[in-house]
């Protein structure tokens, strides 16, 4: 009887995941049934996203832990946490999936493979399912399984179109790097299990305080586990795959990887550190870590390394997707800053930054895609004069890039502002100065695109990129959100503040 209510309760908490799974199966079946005419498949995906979004949102306010381990010891928290923090990240994933479906409607690359569109969406939903479990996982086994589910789908997707040699190169590189890092992570997990005898994060939290734990082994295990997660969020020194994969993968998948999989990785990292290593949270919202591993020093070093490497490498790029890849590495560095301060305020900054990053990064990729549809090129040199022939796309891209730089009055500034506020409040002034100087560096490569679009005269005839009405609406709505949150960010911050609840403690 107890077991049954436990199961019902658990299932009710994973309703969004169930919806995604059903959608995955329906997509595969639909692909088999309608193998002649597949034009309905994207709509199935759209509806599934909306339904999953509904079930995710109605979870708001309820929080609970699913699949409890039996109550032998005092800790009875399960392997899956449904809380408002997970709702926030799941919505980030769903919104970006929604946009990716919209992008796929008009992406030339995706239109060329329309007879395999069923698999394409099924794989995307596989990724989403993996991300959902990653966001909520509180058990090392579930963490590993969900990461593998997401990774395997994304390896296939990054080489899915097979239109260019680059596609296969991207997929293979992604797979090789991914295999190594997940192997490392698995090794780290096994060490933790060996030390504590448990895979449940809550249990580990209680167990690693015991004086018998070998701190050196634990630190080694932490670094190995971070290698696995750092690979997903493309933080240095695990970022080498990012530029190649971003450049080679179809642009819709690149955009998806840069936002959704990064979001899932960050959610996982935050939850992992919070549940496993925090001893208590003081009334000011500062996290006090167990004295077993110095996360802060490591994260500071990695964050600074990541943003500096990302920004300086981006300076030399001539391919738009590659440039945005390095820029996304740099942004991973900024986002890590929010974690570095180890406080609720830092997490708030991450949530705000992520919502903004979602909009501006997807917007930039959308414009790049629309231009590539027409010109077939993603080279920055081919953008010469585009701002004059296609002013709408030019101005929109300008706004997205300015927002990525973090200049007011765009939402990117608000994201950066909250990060720096968190840093200054934690009295980490030097780190803040380094991050600010980094954003000055980033200005150069973002503005270089503007320079090509508006300042440089094209040698040959600049093509006129015409945009269809749905895409105009899509781009303008993203621009509108960027500018609105740039001058009035109360709703954004309110939403993020109400989603700070991380289950446990």
């Amino acid at each position, binding site marked *: 009887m107890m077991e049954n209510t436990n199961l019902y309760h658990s299932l009710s908490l994973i309703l969004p995941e169930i919806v995604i799974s059903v959608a995955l199966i329906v997509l595969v079946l639909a692909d088999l049934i309608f193998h002649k005419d597949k034009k309905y498949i994207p709509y199935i995906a759209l509806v599934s996203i909306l339904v999953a979004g509904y079930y995710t949102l109605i979870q708001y306010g309820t929080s609970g832990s699913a699949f409890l381990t039996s109550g032998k010891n005092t800790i009875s928290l399960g392997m899956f946490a449904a809380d408002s923090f997970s709702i926030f990240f799941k919505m980030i994933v769903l919104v970006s999936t929604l946009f990716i479906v919209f992008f796929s409607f008009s992406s030339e690359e995706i239109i060329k493979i329309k007879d395999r569109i069923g698999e394409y969406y099924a794989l995307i939903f596989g990724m989403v399912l993996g991300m959902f479990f990653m966001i909520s996982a509180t058990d090392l086994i579930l963490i590993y399984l969900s990461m593998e589910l997401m990774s395997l789908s994304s390896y296939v997707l990054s080489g899915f179109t097979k239109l260019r040699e680059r596609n296969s190169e991207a997929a293979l590189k992604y797979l090789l790097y991914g295999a190594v890092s997940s192997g490392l992570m698995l090794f780290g997990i096994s060490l933790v299990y060996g030390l504590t005898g448990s895979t449940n994060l809550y249990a580990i939290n209680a167990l690693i305080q015991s004086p018998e734990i070998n701190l050196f082994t634990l630190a080694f295990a932490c670094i190995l586990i971070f290698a696995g997660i750092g690979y997903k969020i493309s933080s240095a020194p695990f970022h080498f795959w990012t530029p190649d994969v971003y450049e080679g993968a179809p642009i819709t998948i690149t955009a998806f990887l840069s936002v959704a999989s990064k979001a899932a990785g960050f959610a996982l990292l935050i939850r992992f550190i919070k549940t496993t290593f925090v001893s208590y949270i003081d009334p000011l919202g500062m996290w006090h870590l167990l004295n077993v591993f110095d996360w802060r020093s490591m994260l500071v070093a990695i964050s600074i390394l990541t943003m500096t490497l990302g920004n300086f490498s981006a300076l030399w790029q001539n391919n738009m997707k590659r440039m945005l890849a390095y820029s996304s590495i740099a942004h991973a560095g900024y986002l890590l800053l929010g974690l570095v301060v180890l406080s609720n305020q830092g997490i*708030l900054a991450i949530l705000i930054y992520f919502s903004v990053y979602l909009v501006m990064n997807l917007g930039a990729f959308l414009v790049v895609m629309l231009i590539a549809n027409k010109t077939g090129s993603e080279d920055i040199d081919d953008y010469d004069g585009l701002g004059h022939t296609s002013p709408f796309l030019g101005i929109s891209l300008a706004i997205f890039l300015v927002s990525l730089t973090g200049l007011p009055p765009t939402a990117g500034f608000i994201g950066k502002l909250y990060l720096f506020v968190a840093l200054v409040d934690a009295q980490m*002034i030097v780190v*803040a100065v380094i991050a600010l100087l980094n954003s000055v560096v980033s*200005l150069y490569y973002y503005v270089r695109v503007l320079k090509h679009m508006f*300042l440089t005269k094209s040698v040959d005839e600049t093509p006129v990129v015409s945009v269809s009405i749905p895409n105009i609406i899509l781009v303008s709505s993203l621009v509108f959100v960027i500018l609105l949150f740039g001058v009035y960010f109360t709703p954004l911050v309110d939403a993020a*503040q109400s989603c700070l609840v991380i289950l446990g403690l």
Partner: protein
Amino acid sequence: MIGFPILSLITFLPILGMFLIMFMKKEQSKSIKYLTLGITALQIVLALVLLASYNYSAGGIYEEKSFQFIEKFKWINISGISWLGNIKIDYFMGIDGLSMPMVLLTALVSFVAALSSWNIEKSVKGYFALFLLLDAGMMGVFVSLDFFLFYIFWELMLLPMYFLIGIWGGPRKEYAAIKFFIYTLFGSVFILLVMIGLYFSATELMADGSRVHTFSMIALMNPANYSADGILSALNPDNLRLIAYIALFAGFAIKIPMFPFHTWLPDAHVEAPTPISVILAGVLLKMGTYGILRISYPIFPDITRDLMWYIALFGMVNIIYGALVALAQKDFKKLIAYSSVSHMGYVLLGMASLTTVGINGAIFQMFNHGTITAMLFLIVGVVYDRTHTRGLNDFGGLASQMPVYTGFVTVAFFAAIGLPSMSGFVSEALVFIGAFGVDSLRVLTIISTLGILLGAAYMLWTLQRIFFGPLNEKWASLKDLDAREYAMFIPLTIIIIFLGVYPSAMLNIMNSSVNSLVHFVTTTVSTTSLGGL
């Protein structure tokens, strides 16, 4: 008081114009130009309305109730969770004797620059849309009293300026534009950091008795608002006020531009189209000194007093260095650009004196430099339009060809030299009187007076090289000024001479504010609480 939000109107009118222009057709270039001109003219009217109902005896600076035309609304108000506190940002505008001259200057220079933009032919729509955005940013900086709002406007100008130099500029425009952009962004990130630091160090007393962190400049000026553990609070023995002051000062100094941060200016000026040079020299440079007077001085009075000698030193270096480099120039526009560096040095010197006379002189010099340099760049523009060269040695004897033009040039040059009966004389004299009266600055002041001599040298030499001597036969058919150019020069000339003869018209506007600024900066003791201030 006026029954409508006049400061918002004067700030956002250009943005409205920008949207109108975006919906106009490319071919309607004439109407776009007239629209821009109309909007800038309307700004002048609004500025004059402000002036007409301006209360000359209100001090402003640190006292909210003596600011005029205040508009204060809640903009961002996030009732936080306990550990985060409230985040409160006000939409807070108002003017006092410090900002009133700048508002007048911005309206005037924008109008003149709009007139001088008449022969822009390339992408007219984009040009005037960006021009108006720039205008809004400048006006916003001068009327904002909330640090956050100030910063938004401050940054808002960067992008239009980048494009205006980068698209419509000269041969090395791309280099000049990105140099300007990166330099100023580099400066403004420090301003941002200090802004956040101040936010955490001070709180403002709300009507309901609670204390919340604040971006309000006026609340940040009151030492009683600082908590003992704030990193920028004087009560905190480990405070970082000195470092913060230097960072903030550097952020503003890049805009002035103060030696050694000046290297972007000659590039930007030489490459920018004439109207943008006019705006750059006429208004943008003043934002740096305005920021120092509005923010650095009253928020950090203790550090200001400690560092006044260094500020004066940098002023002196600016004066002498700018003048010496100007003397060596062969390009007319570059010469004027370096003369700007020299003339902004007077502003720094006057500010550093911390006396009423000196600061009056500094603000008056900001206004006068705005009008005079605007005129000088217009002068370069006129001759460049006709001859497409700016080499000082390419000319000669133009006086016989363009007598009226030569007349205006003479007025502007003499004003720049600081000839009595021109406005520049009065402000430079006040600066020197103010600085000389302070014992510690006396030597620096004496050296700085050399700047006048050097100024006369390069200006008169230029006058001679271009306008006198034998006529260069190449330019035998140059036309004198047309009606539009008259319309640009006449108002500026009138103002320059009028303020030279009757400086009180401007000095009275700023006097009571300067008095309260000097009083506040020289007497405020930051380490003890002064409740009533």
